[in-house]
């Protein structure tokens, strides 16, 4: 993407006034999307965005500047601005020898989105719309969205690293509205993968749309969710939002370093029930949170976070790892070249246990079964977190009965992890397409889990 000698000059400029480390991150992003709503293809959008972010680290201070101007003059001006933070350091000329790193990708996209006719993308939307509407007369509104991003990045730093990646992500979403006697209800489904247009060889958009429609239709007869503490059985797949919030963010080394996580200082300690093993794995095939190298040039890896209930490691980016005197775990990510990297999850998965998923429900006399979750939010310092259920049912006498209206559940991370009393042998990745927000930056993350049960969580409904 950039000439090697130019990169060397830019890194040299960045360190002219001093500094321990300099990095150039170049990004070229092409995106296209199409939206159908209210029966009409409203708009096709395409865009291109490219630029570079340059950072200089001096002790504990990072200077950062970004520019959309990739000419030598533009890059060197940004290097100068980033280096300005390194005031008073022992500057000078530094020779930087770069070694190009070989990048291995878990999966090569077969069909690049820019080679696909726009009409084919639009046609998917129309099929989804028709399918959702045909699912039930009560479906009064459907919107469908297609989006692809082709992102090329280059990372080079004063430690001599030079690495590149070329990744394609494709996403399809459907949301529906059903109208009935009790008002309106909504349904949502998504699918997102780190792959090209060949996603649609396997993904049946009509089935996806029908599922989103059934979800809204089911909720038309939903009763208000209960209010209070109940056992909750969480179905395989999307339920992994629970772990993302209950401990994933709390295992990010930036929160740990500042003692702003309830999990700080707990490595080697039992933090969850012994049936729980949790990994963060950026190498998982075509999953939504997968990549070849992170946004600091580090190859993706699989990190075991909890093994049989014991906290084994946190997730690390370059800066936090350097301070701790250990390697990064390949979790340094950024939304675009305009942002500084920070510690982020990739695909966070609970590994299967050995119980029968249906038996988990049968052994629950009274509780809630959550089939789909929306997002969530956590305060890592207190450990309190919420997650929303977008399809859930009452469990009565060991059987799944009435659907429930949407509500948030609230819990405290360490307590909920200890209260996981059963993990089933099934496993599913969430459908993909979810975005995780942190300090204003949003990145694609994947998640997966088997069916599991928490003995008690506070359900935030309105029913007594």
């Amino acid at each position, binding site marked *: 993407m950039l000439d090697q000698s130019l990169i060397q000059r830019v890194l040299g400029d960045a360190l002219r006034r001093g500094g321990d480390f300099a990095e150039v991150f170049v990004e070229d992003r092409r995106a296209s999307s*199409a939206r*159908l709503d209210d029966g*009409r*293809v409203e*708009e*096709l*959008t*395409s*865009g*291109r*965005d*490219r630029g570079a972010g340059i950072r200089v680290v001096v*002790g*504990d*201070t*990072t200077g*950062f500047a970004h*520019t959309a101007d990739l000419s030598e003059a533009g890059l060197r001006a940004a290097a100068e*601005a980033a280096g*300005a*933070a390194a005031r008073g350091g022992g500057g000078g000329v530094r020779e930087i020898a770069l070694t190009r790193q070989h990048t291995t990708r878990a999966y090569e996209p077969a069909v690049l989105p820019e080679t696909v006719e*726009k009409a084919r993308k*639009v046609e998917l939307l129309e099929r989804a719309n028709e399918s959702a509407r045909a699912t039930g007369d009560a479906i*009064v*509104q459907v919107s469908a969205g297609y989006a692809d991003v082709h992102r090329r990045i280059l990372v080079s730093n004063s430690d001599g690293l030079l690495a590149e990646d070329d990744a394609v992500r494709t996403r399809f979403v459907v949301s529906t*509205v059903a109208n009935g006697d009790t*008002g*309106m*209800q*909504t349904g949502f489904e998504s699918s997102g993968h780190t792959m090209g247009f060949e996603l649609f060889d396997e993904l049946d958009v009509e089935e996806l749309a029908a599922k989103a429609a059934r979800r809204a239709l089911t909720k038309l007869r939903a009763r208000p*969710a209960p*209010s*209070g503490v109940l056992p909750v059985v969480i179905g395989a797949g999307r339920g992994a939002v629970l772990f993302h919030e209950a401990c994933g963010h709390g295992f990010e080394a930036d929160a740990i370093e*500042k*003692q*702003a996580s309830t999990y700080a200082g707990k490595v080697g300690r039992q933090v969850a029930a012994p049936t729980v093993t949790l990994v963060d794995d950026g190498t998982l095939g075509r999953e939504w949170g997968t990549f070849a190298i992170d946004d600091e040039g580090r190859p993706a890896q699989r990190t075991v976070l909890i093994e049989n209930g014991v906290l084994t490691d946190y997730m690390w980016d370059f800066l936090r790892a350097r301070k701790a005197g250990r390697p990064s775990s390949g979790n340094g990510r950024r939304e675009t070249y*305009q942002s500084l990297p920070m510690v982020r999850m990739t695909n966070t998965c609970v590994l299967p246990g050995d119980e029968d998923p249906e038996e988990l429900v049968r052994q629950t006399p009274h509780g809630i079964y959550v089939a789909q979750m*929306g*997002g*969530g*939010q956590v*305060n890592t*310092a*207190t450990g*309190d977190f*919420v*997650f*929303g259920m*977008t399809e859930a049912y009452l469990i009565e006498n060991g059987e799944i009965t009435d659907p429930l*209206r*949407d*509500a*948030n559940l*609230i*819990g*405290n991370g360490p307590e909920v992890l200890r209260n996981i009393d059963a993990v089933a042998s099934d496993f599913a990745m969430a459908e993909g397409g979810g975005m995780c927000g942190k300090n204003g930056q949003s990145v694609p993350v994947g998640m997966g889990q088997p069916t599991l049960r928490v003995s008690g969580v*506070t359900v*935030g*409904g*309105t029913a007594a």
Partner: protein
Amino acid sequence: MSGLLDLVTRVAGWAQEGEQVEVYAMRGRETEVVVYDADIESLSSATSAGVGVRVVRDHRQGFAYAGSLDDDVVAETLAEARDNVAFGTPDEFVGLAEPDGMEPAALDLWRDDLEAFPTERKIELAMELERRVKEGDPRIRSINSSEYGDGMVEAAIATSTGIRAAHRRSSCYLSVYALAGDEAETQTGVGYSVGRGPSDIEVEEAAADAVERATRMLGARKPASARLPVVLDTRVTATLLSILAGTLSGEAVLKGRSLFANRVGELVGAPMLVLTDDPTDPAAYGASTYDAEGLACRRNRLISEGVLEGFLYDAYSGRRTGVPSTASAVRAGFKSGPGVGARALSLEPGDRSQAEIAAMVGEGLLVQSISGVHSGVNPVSGDFSVGAEGLMIRGGAFAEPVREITIASSIQRMLKEIVAVGNDLEWLPSSAAGVTVAIGEMSMSGA
């Protein structure tokens, strides 16, 4: 700024026969300083620019954007938007905004002193904020981050239908995230101050707010579930109003996604409820001279004495409904086309302070902050369930802190059950103003 207006006007002039072209361009500069433990953690400075082009032909539209204002890139973007048109479904109401004769309000949203404000001073402000929070109370354990940030943005829109609009705004903020407590317990509090320039920033206020919010939560427990009156702190109300805005969008109404469709003229809230969106109020954080389609922003009354008066519209939703645009087009930067949204919502304040409202309520809950708004509030069904923390109200006074609870109801019921609006209206960094609001009854889920 004239450079940007010239650029968009020139490109809009490239519209071909039978075609409408809208060009939106922006250019900005920003600085962000993060301080940690009396040292600079990061210092970022950046410039950005971009263009978004919308083309309409044969009642269809296409959109394209690029993160550059270079002539060749802008020309390519127009070509790409033109190419995208063919795939839309024809709709007779699709079209750009047209000049409507409304004079733009004279708003001064730019502070020259920000431009001259030296980086050293920005760093000092963030450091001073961190220091004041630390010294503010012995129970403050650490400061997760203390930040100063500012931005200066110029934007221009021109269309082949005759729209010409250019405006600029500056903003700056100071924000701190404090941790209170000891080994056994941690509570957190955020304090901030925002304005258009450095002279608007109140360091002491931001520091005191963070200290107060973090320390008053110490010792918080999870209370038993109950139904009780709930008093929403100013920041919480601002969040709720921005959600409510989604249900008052003319586009949501047209598409059958608003709970308030077909309810104009009906009582939808308590009689003291008066809701206005007024981007021409210079005190509003979201104040703006023009909307995202280049029409002059104006004051729109949405709810009056509890009665729904109308909705917000952009050019498309207005035309399809048969009413003029209310100049409520918004856009999230140059990468997307316009949609309908509010910029400066506020409730008409009442005459009681927060403490007086607590006294009036007697027994209840003061909610200091909420979480999970995106996962727990469904603006289509109206279902409302969010995580919360705050203080119990006992005997009309603020009592023990509580955490790990949810509060739930429905948007429809909450509006009707408002029993008081405070006199403490403040503009927050949001599309809405904060003000204390008391709701007669909500479900609090706890232990």
